[in-house]
């Protein structure tokens, strides 16, 4: 792929924020120390499910050094939540707690020790209710209710869709296979524990610095819960020390410090403990899945039917979207002409689940890819070749009306097959060693906003200084993924200047245009487009002014290498700084806006809002493992991964995203699990919640495939989430290749592998996984004609940008 046409795009540059990070100068939320600052602590529930009978703060109030104590009654009686349909959280619980760790009261004090002591002195009287700790219990329980809303006693949401007649597909099939899988919940575990600092000014205005991926939603939640005009609230996202989706909801502690700052007149800081971070959660939903496909003897899918039983935890969070995502993207990787999906999300008395890297899709991906591995085995097909054959075609639609633009999946498959030596290894390595294959696809930004509106999803301002310096103002949030850098590269390329001449100011609700946030892999595409458009507009103004001076037509000019010059006569031109002066002289202050709204392509049926995206990334992965047959321990030796990123705006950053995704996928595959006992999180610590170290992380070989998608800025698609998806199933399939055991549930812990091998010795099927499904009657499916194989809308055209 030639990147020669570009000066900045495609170059392995350092991240623009790397310099302050390597010297320890970046100020994360917990690094703010303001004069007269007070420290806050939250008193949290001891019970998974209980009514709050009384909260007595007398003893806490009396403790010297305490400035203020608040309970739920000190807030307007308004609930909040990320989705308009699930406004079910309170800043502090007033009448009921739904999980251990639910916030009940809060203290601001002279220091953190005093605040903690005071929080422990708050007396809470509970009336304990029976806890519901699993999806099975939740679906069976109709007397005890966690919430008063939803599609059933403890059912947050139940959905069903059918695109084309799946039964007909099964009838035509050479092989129909059903499997059941379980994907355990796990959490983001960012290294930075959430923190927030609120400052109230005497004129009644509020500023909040927070470790958030979505300052815009925090802004809205604060306005709603504090009943304040949004204009008086300023939310600034500090550099985020890791998010992965865990800092994508507005959180109770953000609202609490704001209220405490208002009451005390002091800046108030809260830094959560690691245990509290586990209570914030919003991580991977535990999902029990059933999948049935009908295939031809070549492995072509004729029909697929998937069911998800989703354990949502105590609150809604993004849950409705998460639930739909467990079904929506099953059709984007392989050709699925007929598709049926049924899903239910139940409430349980555990920290709420939400969007973790890959939001709702790693679980069904695990099911599908392990299932296909079994199909290939049964049909005696090579799993890689079979997948290659059934990969989707570009510029088509899926059964469930999603539009695919570019698709580099076949190239990804070929590249990992080649690089890993797949053909020489699969089913050929000695006992205990194996390779596994899996593919995936993921969206590049959700096509629809979280709250219904027709405004842009991202906006940017590019401003040019008389000296030639350029400032980008954009609401996008840097969480380590490189969003500040991407904005810089895009603008530098458009204006033909050195990235060093650009400063970015991001994620400040007062100063930067709205960007919806760093989630759903949307920032590069959406904020990238907004910034590119703003820069293009600036360039037009500059070219107009320079053209006048040089007495040429604006169309004859180009901006490159820090100059604006005549394309066919490069000697004739001016420096960028001179162009800025000419531009400002002609047009006045040089600042342009840009914005981006994704194409409206959702199908015309209820529930079609989740799944559409401007374009989809594709990934193929091979994992090579060693399994110790005596202990069941699985060691991943190597991972090859090829990712279709559309275009790598900076290959170094893309590789970083891919490697980080592989890492997180391996953690989920092998050891990470959010587990509970007696109503409590069993292991809310960095030590006992197992995150892989350097010693468990294998060599990762990353291959970038470029398809230059017409929807992405310079052709770019996402890279931050998709590459996680194929990793867990690739590992599972490799374990099977190594020792012949099917572990149909993550994590693939040593005891499960050992158990499967023991079963094998006893002559039973060497499988460990869920045995049954809960009894649940899904609603009648919404029946929609399958759009499979239709050509993409004419508005989607192959075009290259530059």
């Amino acid at each position, binding site marked *: 792929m030639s990147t020669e046409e570009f000066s900045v795009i495609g170059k392995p540059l350092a991240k623009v924020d790397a310099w302050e990070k390597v010297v320890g100068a970046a100020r994360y939320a917990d690094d703010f120390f303001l004069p007269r600052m007070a420290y806050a602590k939250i008193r*949290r*529930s*001891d*019970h998974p499910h209980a009514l709050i009978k009384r909260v007595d703060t007398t003893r806490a109030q009396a403790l010297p050094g305490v400035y203020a104590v608040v309970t739920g009654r000190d807030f307007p009686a308004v609930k909040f939540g990320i989705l308009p349909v699930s406004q079910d959280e309170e800043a502090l619980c007033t009448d009921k707690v739904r999980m*251990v760790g639910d916030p009940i009261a809060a203290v601001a004090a002279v220091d*953190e*020790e005093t605040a*903690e002591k005071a929080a*422990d002195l708050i007396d809470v009287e509970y009336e304990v209710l029976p806890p519901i700790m699993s999806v099975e219990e939740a679906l069976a329980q109709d007397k005890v209710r966690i919430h008063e809303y939803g599609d059933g006693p403890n059912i947050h949401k139940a959905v069903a869709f059918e695109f084309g007649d799946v039964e007909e597909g099964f009838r035509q099939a050479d092989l129909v296979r059903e499997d059941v899988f379980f994907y355990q919940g796990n959490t983001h575990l960012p290294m930075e524990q959430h923190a927030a600092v609120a400052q109230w000014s005497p004129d009644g205005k509020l500023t909040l610095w927070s470790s958030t991926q979505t300052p815009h939603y925090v802004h809205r939640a604060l306005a709603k819960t504090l009943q304040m005009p949004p204009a008086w609230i300023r939310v600034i996202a500090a550099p985020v020390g890791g998010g992965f989706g865990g800092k994508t909801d507005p959180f109770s502690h953000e609202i609490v410090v704001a209220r405490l700052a208002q009451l005390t007149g002091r800046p108030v800081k809260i*830094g959560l*403990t*690691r*245990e509290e971070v586990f209570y914030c959660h919003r991580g991977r939903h535990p999902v029990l899945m059933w999948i049935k496909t009908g295939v031809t003897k070549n492995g072509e899918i004729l029909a697929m039917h998937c069911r998800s039983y989703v354990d949502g935890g105590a609150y809604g969070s993004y849950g409705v979207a998460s639930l739909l995502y467990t079904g929506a993207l099953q059709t984007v990787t392989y050709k699925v002409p007929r598709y049926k999906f049924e899903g239910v999300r139940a409430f349980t008395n555990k920290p709420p689940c939400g969007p973790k890297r890959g939001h709702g899709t790693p679980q069904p991906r695990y099911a599908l890819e392990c299932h296909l591995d079994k199909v290939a085995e049964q049909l005696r097909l090579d799993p890689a070749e079979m997948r290659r054959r059934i990969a989707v075609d570009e510029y088509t639609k899926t059964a469930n009306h999603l539009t695919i633009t570019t698709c580099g999946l076949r190239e990804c498959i070929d590249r990992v097959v080649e690089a890993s030596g797949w053909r020489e290894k699969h089913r050929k390595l000695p*006992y205990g060693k194996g390779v596994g294959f899996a593919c995936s696809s993921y969206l590049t930004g959700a096509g629809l906003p979280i709250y219904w509106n027709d405004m842009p999803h991202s906006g940017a301002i590019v401003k040019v200084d008389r000296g030639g310096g350029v400032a980008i103002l954009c609401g996008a949030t840097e969480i380590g993924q490189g969003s500040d850098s991407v904005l810089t590269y895009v603008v530098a390329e458009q204006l033909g200047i050195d990235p060093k001449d650009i400063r970015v100011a991001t994620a400040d609700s007062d100063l930067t245009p709205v960007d919806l946030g760093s989630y759903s892999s949307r920032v590069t595409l959406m904020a990238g487009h907004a910034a590119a458009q703003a820069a293009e507009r600036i360039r037009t103004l500059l070219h107009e002014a320079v053209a006048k001076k040089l007495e040429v037509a604006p169309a004859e000019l180009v901006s490159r290498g820090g100059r604006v010059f005549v394309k066919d006569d490069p000697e004739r031109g001016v420096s960028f700084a001179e162009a800025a002066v000419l531009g400002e002289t002609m047009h006045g202050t040089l600042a342009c806006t840009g914005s981006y709204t994704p194409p409206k392509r959702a199908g015309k049926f209820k529930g079609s809002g989740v799944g559409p995206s401007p374009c989809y990334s594709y990934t193929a992965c091979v994992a090579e493992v060693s399994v*110790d*047959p*005596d*202990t069941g321990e699985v060691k991943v030796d190597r991972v090859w991964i090829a990712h279709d990123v559309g275009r790598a705006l900076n290959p170094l950053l893309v590789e970083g995203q891919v490697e980080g995704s592989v890492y997180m996928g391996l953690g989920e595959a092998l*050891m990470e699990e959010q587990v509970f006992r*007696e109503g*409590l*999180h*069993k*292991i*809310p*610590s960095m*030590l*006992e919640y*197992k995150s*892989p*170290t350097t*010693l*468990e992380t294998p060599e990762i070989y990353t291959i970038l495939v470029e398809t230059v998608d017409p929807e992405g800025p310079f052709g770019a698609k996402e890279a931050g989430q998709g590459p996680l998806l194929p990793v867990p199933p690739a590992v599972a399939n490799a374990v099977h290749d190594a020792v012949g055991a099917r572990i149909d549930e993550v994590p693939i*812990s*040593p*005891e499960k592998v*050992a158990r499967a091998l023991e079963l094998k010795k006893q002559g039973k099927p060497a499988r460990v996984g869920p045995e049954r499904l809960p009894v649940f009657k899904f609603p009648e499916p919404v029946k929609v004609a399958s759009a499979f194989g239709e050509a993409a809308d004419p508005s989607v055209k192959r075009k290259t940008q530059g």
Partner: protein
Amino acid sequence: MMRLPPFTYLAPLSVGEAVRMMADHGPEAMFVAGGTDLYPNMKRRQFEPKVLVGLRGIRELVGVRGEATTGLVIGAGTTLTDVSEHPAVREHVPALAVAAGLVSTPPLRNMGTIGGNVCVDPRCNYYNQSYQWRRAIGFCMKKDGDICLVAPGSSRCWAVSSTDTAPVLWSLGARARLVGVGGERVVPVASLFKDDGIDYLAKARDEVLTEILLPPVDGLRCAYLKLRRRGSFDFPVLGVAVALSLDGGRVKTAKIVLGAVASQPREAVEAGALLVGERLTPALIAEVAGVAARPSKPLDNTDLTHPYRKKMTKVFVARALRRLAGLPDSPENEEEVA
């Protein structure tokens, strides 16, 4: 941020002074060496001593002395890094170097001492939790409560001995020097422990563990295997220490000591006895491993399930013995190597 509760810190410069300070302050006081076990526990309010007697400044506690042939002496204040990297330890008692080198992480080993490691507070995942977590579950008898949450009917605590080095020291027949107000004594490491998750050390409060005395090592072969989820950070959820001496191909002495399956290291006496006088054949090893696993009685209070830990006891003992016999790890691979 998890913070320490307030305390007074005393910094004696000699063992005598440390012992006196401890005696003066009675049950309010605790010794601290590297603090890597005690400080996290204090942050979780598992201990709330009013006085800490810091052993860091006592020079005489630091260092490895003597010769392997006559018996190495390891100061209790020697860091785990120094123990694991010490040339004589590596050469003559490799199992000890391995065990010390497998404790948690490199920075932690730069701080933690071998004395502190032997004295590590037994662990339990109902107990190594924050004050707020323990309050939510209702506290247990090891701190702030009166029942055992793992074995509710039990009158004792079953917290798990989680030291890596103690099983090895026990298997080697090491002794410990204790100095207290009442004087000085040298006891086998094997008798330093009690089978109780709370009152786990057979030592007086005011006694300092000053040094560990290794026996002369002559033709001793030893091994240590540790079961845990990750290659670093994690405590053992099973440790197997084996020390053997051979005489003309036959086992002369043998000790197998299991870690992390009870409130103290547990010697598999019967299994060790089966080895004496015999050749280390695959068949004998398999038999001995089965017998060795009998005293392994893990409960459900650590990472990995207890039936699995029990099952792995057998695998690990076999593996340790096979390594000492020069056999491949797994019987499944036997033919390939042979």
